């Protein structure tokens, strides 16, 4: 299968899932879970570009989600900006911060890079948590509405907030997948992916390693930021936890679990890590134990992640 058909097939599969999943929803609560999955999937897709394509690691990407979320909380109050502009502003600030911080940080390799990005994420979290006069501190703050629902009501269309966010986040996820898939087989994408296997070889064919790493870092920061903005606008409320270390780890786990270099894998990983805790509440105390066990088993037996490993098996069993 060549690049074009993988791209089309992935986009089609995602579109069908987004369109048909509501048929199975017993209550409107599931629209909310669906929206959360799509939003997390978007952030994980950004990490596919950074981790899966370029082979760099980040333990602080929730920090960029935090910037995106608080841009939507602070922008309307302090700058009088409409929410949509705030999403763009958050993305721009995240991208700029990634650009400025990325240059010195991305010189580091493997676990040093992991610790440096971890520090960056914690720094953003601390600023949000401690500057209570601006951000409301640990109590969080309310976020103005996107205003789409009142607009729809004007046309006589009534939807619940969860339903509306299901469709918005679904469309944004599709757009994110489109961009990430375009990149995969493009000239810039090949340059990124060459870093994954050998930085030395990449440099001898003229690839500016530092510049391409920075590009991947900025792209993934923008993805995380837009995801954070969506969470804030959907919940109409935001707390510093959106930028917390645990959320960074969750995002990275979703990416690796689904298959670090797979766009579809990001959505599969997000689905498992978002939906499973809801299902596992039946087991109460054992919820985290079971989640940890599932992750360990996948990493031991399907090391490339769910989607690439299963795709390989299917290809092998096909005649």
């Amino acid at each position, binding site marked *: 299968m060549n690049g074009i058909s993988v791209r089309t097939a992935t986009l089609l599969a995602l579109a069908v899932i987004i369109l048909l999943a509501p048929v199975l929803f017993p209550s409107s609560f599931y629209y909310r879970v669906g929206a959360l999955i799509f939003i997390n999937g978007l952030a994980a897709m950004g990490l596919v570009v950074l981790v899966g394509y370029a082979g760099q690691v980040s333990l602080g990407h929730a920090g960029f989600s935090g910037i995106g979320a608080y841009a939507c909380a602070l922008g309307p109050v302090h700058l009088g900006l409409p929410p949509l502009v705030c999403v763009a502003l958050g993305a721009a600030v995240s991208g700029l911060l990634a650009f400025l911080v990325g240059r010195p940080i991305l010189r580091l390799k493997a676990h040093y890079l992991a610790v440096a990005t971890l520090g960056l994420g914690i720094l953003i979290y601390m600023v949000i948590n401690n500057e209570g006069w601006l951000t409301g501190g640990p109590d969080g703050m309310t976020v103005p509405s996107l205003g789409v629902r009142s607009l729809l009501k004007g046309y006589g269309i009534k939807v619940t907030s969860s339903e509306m966010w299901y469709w918005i986040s679904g469309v944004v996820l599709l757009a994110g997948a*489109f961009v990430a898939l*375009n990149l995969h087989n493009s000239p810039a994408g090949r340059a990124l992916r060459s870093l994954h296997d050998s930085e030395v070889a990449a440099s001898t064919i003229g690839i500016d390693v530092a510049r391409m790493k920075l590009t991947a870092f900025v792209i993934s920061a923008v993805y995380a930021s837009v995801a954070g903005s969506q969470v804030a606008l959907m919940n109409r409320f935001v707390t510093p936890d959106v930028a917390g270390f645990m959320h960074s780890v969750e995002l990275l786990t979703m990416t690796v679990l689904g298959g670090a270099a797979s766009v579809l894998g990001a959505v599969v990983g997000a689905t498992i890590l978002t939906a499973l805790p809801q299902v596992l509440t039946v087991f109460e105390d054992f919820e985290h134990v079971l989640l940890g066990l599932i992750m360990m088993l996948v990493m031991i037996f399907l090391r490339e992640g769910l989607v690439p490993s299963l795709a390989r098996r299917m290809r092998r069993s096909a005649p």
Partner: protein
Amino acid sequence: MTILEVEGLGIDFGGLTAVGGVSFGVGSGEIVSVIGPNGAGKTTLFNMISGIYRPSRGRIMLEGRDITGVASHKLAAMGMSRTFQNLMVFQQMTVLQNVMAGRHLTEGVHVLTDLLGLPGSWRRNRESEREAMRLLELVGLERGAWREASELSYGALKRLEIARALATQPKLLLLDEPAAGCNAVETQEIDGLISDIAGTGVSILLVEHDMKLVMKISGHVVVMDQGEKISEGRPEAVAHDPRVIEAYLGTEAEGAKEHASG
């Protein structure tokens, strides 16, 4: 005309001299080989010329320009590319994509165009694909173009690296032991391939263990031992140089001495 000029090039690692001070030149369209026993400093010399190590002393001139200490990705833009002794193929790409990656300099970096999948992105992809297929035909890998690079045999991977390096359209190609680990048939194929490439006007600097390959195709041979150049000249002259024979085989007297003391 000289394309590469190396003058008194040397490097120390923590007080230990790996390469003392080596000088030689590569003429336009010429095949020059650097030979020597294990640990002679051949690959270290290569890493200095290709910008991976920063030399402690000496100068490297490419087409009259001083390129000492210039980063390797800039050297590629100036017309120098290389292959590696221990393969550095992009394992997660197909064979074709590996060679297409070598077209990075021609393609340029247009991130936004590529992210949005605009026509410019597709056009550059098509051009790169066409050129990459041509290079794969040149090295005889066109039939495996769509396979994962990790599925290829060792000899095929060596040829893939050559194709990827050629995709940068180099004036000077550095080949680090292209025949190492290859069987007799593969060695002969690579031998012919190197001559073909030189025939298109690309100058070649070769590090090689396989003396037969070196003697057959190179116009000029530089012999290194223990970080120093010990001989230089036409292949047949070098082969009969007593210092070269000593470096490779050891002298009888030395052998006897060792015997006596042991």
